[in-house]
């Protein structure tokens, strides 16, 4: 068991480093969102798959079904909305019908109007505002099961060329992905929690694994806050990686400084 390196007066034992790391996140987010910093974000391969999926629908003359998840405003949902905006632009360009199932939980109620606005804006920007049809964003109730039932029903009736499912989906994800595959749609999904990711990796034609979805969202979006977020997360992954490698090397030489520092 690691022993703290030192005790800071007033601060509870073993919580100093946690506090410092929290403060560091604040500082970094503040730094990267202030001013006009254009942060580089790598293009993830999944975006090509999304473009192909919409292109396929345009060729086949069939609709695309895209959803942004059934969670409230979390960063998964924001990523889903950014991707939805991209899909809507592509659909408007190619004249493809886009269906966006909405609802699914109480928290998602406040997300729905934002999604409507995003799709509408995309159609307007592409110069085809008349193609926007509010009925293609059906509200499938604030209940997860009714949402899944409705979603699956839409897939079965419209038999889309592609399904793009992002944002937070929980146990409902597999049901949707399997139905989508059964009706012959190219299925692109993203997963936020590990068990889901493993199952979706099998069930989908393409999957955005974990953080790939927020990164794709940030890549597509001009929102400096989303890009800053990816950068800060990267920095913390470097910190984690650095601590692990340094800690492994040092502790195997008999120096426990990293563990002790982390438990300070």
């Amino acid at each position, binding site marked *: 068991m690691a022993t703290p390196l030192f005790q800071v007066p007033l601060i509870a034992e073993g919580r100093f480093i946690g506090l410092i790391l929290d403060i560091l996140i604040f500082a970094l987010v503040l730094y990267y969102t202030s001013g006009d910093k254009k942060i580089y974000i790598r293009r993830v391969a999944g975006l090509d798959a999304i473009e192909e999926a919409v292109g396929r629908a345009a060729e086949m003359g069939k609709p695309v079904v895209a959803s942004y998840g059934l969670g409230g405003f979390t960063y998964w949902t924001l990523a889903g909305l950014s991707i939805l905006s991209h899909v809507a632009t592509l659909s408007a360009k190619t004249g493809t019908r886009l269906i966006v199932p909405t609802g699914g939980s109480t928290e998602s109620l406040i997300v729905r109007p934002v999604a409507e606005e995003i799709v509408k804006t995309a159609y307007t920007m592409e110069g085809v505002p008349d193609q926007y049809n509010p009925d293609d964003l059906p509200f499938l109730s604030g209940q997860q099961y009714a949402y899944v039932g409705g979603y699956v029903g839409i897939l079965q009736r419209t038999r889309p060329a592609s399904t793009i499912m992002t944002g937070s989906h929980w*146990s409902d994800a597999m049901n949707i992905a*399997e139905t989508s595959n*059964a009706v012959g749609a190219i299925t692109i999904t993203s997963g936020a*929690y*590990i*068990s889901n990711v*493993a199952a979706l990796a099998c069930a989908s034609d393409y999957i955005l694994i974990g953080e790939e979805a927020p990164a794709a969202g940030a890549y597509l979006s001009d929102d400096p806050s989303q890009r800053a977020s990816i950068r800060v997360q990267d920095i913390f992954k470097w910190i984690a990686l650095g601590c692990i490698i340094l800690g492994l090397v040092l502790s195997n030489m008999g120096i426990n400084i990293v563990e002790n520092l982390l438990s300070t």
Partner: protein
Amino acid sequence: MSDNSLMKTLATYDRRWVYLVLFLVVVGPLLRPIGMPISVSPDTRQYYEAISSVEEGDKILFTLNTEFSGYNEIQAGIVATMRVFIEHNTKICVAVGHPEATGIPELVFNQLRSELDANGYVYGEDYVILGYVMPNEASVASMSQDFQGAITQDWLGRSIDDTFLSEINTWEDWDLIADFTTGLATTYLLNHFALRGTPMTVNCIGVMIASQKPYVDSGVYLAILQSMRGGAELEYLTGHPGPGLTAMDAFTFGHYMLLLFIIAGNVGYYGYTRQQRGGG
């Protein structure tokens, strides 16, 4: 030609056949159990050691963070663990983290009626059922910091003042938290109890193993019991066969069926695609 169509069938059959076969291989052995042997995994042994090291009078927070569906999966673990606690004469407080779970304590205690009587358990003195007291993180946090302020009554509205719970004030006063979970408030218990130092064990559904295992490895949990299989193994260790062990036949068949489908699918995939390439 018939060889080709067989390969095609193996590669592209209607998935409803999978559903039907899975249904039948599970229901069959449940209707007529065979009683095939099982083995005990190291994780279950560790869990058994953790829960059976409790002592008489220890105060245990028994949390049911599950819907009915999850209960069906982990009920073997719940009942077997509860039996161990009763046999050790501990003080047990049952709290639940989902509205549906308010119906579960009754199912558990009904199965343990004779153990309760044998050890002279009296409601209020030796065990208390709190009901749905963990709807969100805030409520769990307040239970951890100021129990008396957060909880005043049991699940039927009776005051807890005259029970052993009047001695509980903060997270330090619990000797063990035994959590049974499909997710829900477990993260909150982890944050506000286990991380502060309350010993905690977890029996989770299979879906959560991957996300919960790192906590055992990093020493936050004492031990983990995995899914229904862990429950069956625990029943075996405690010497009280129950629902877990009788379900193991269906469990075995379900797994073997899936393996057969995977093999068939791969044979079909290779046979079919290779023939297509050769022909085209």
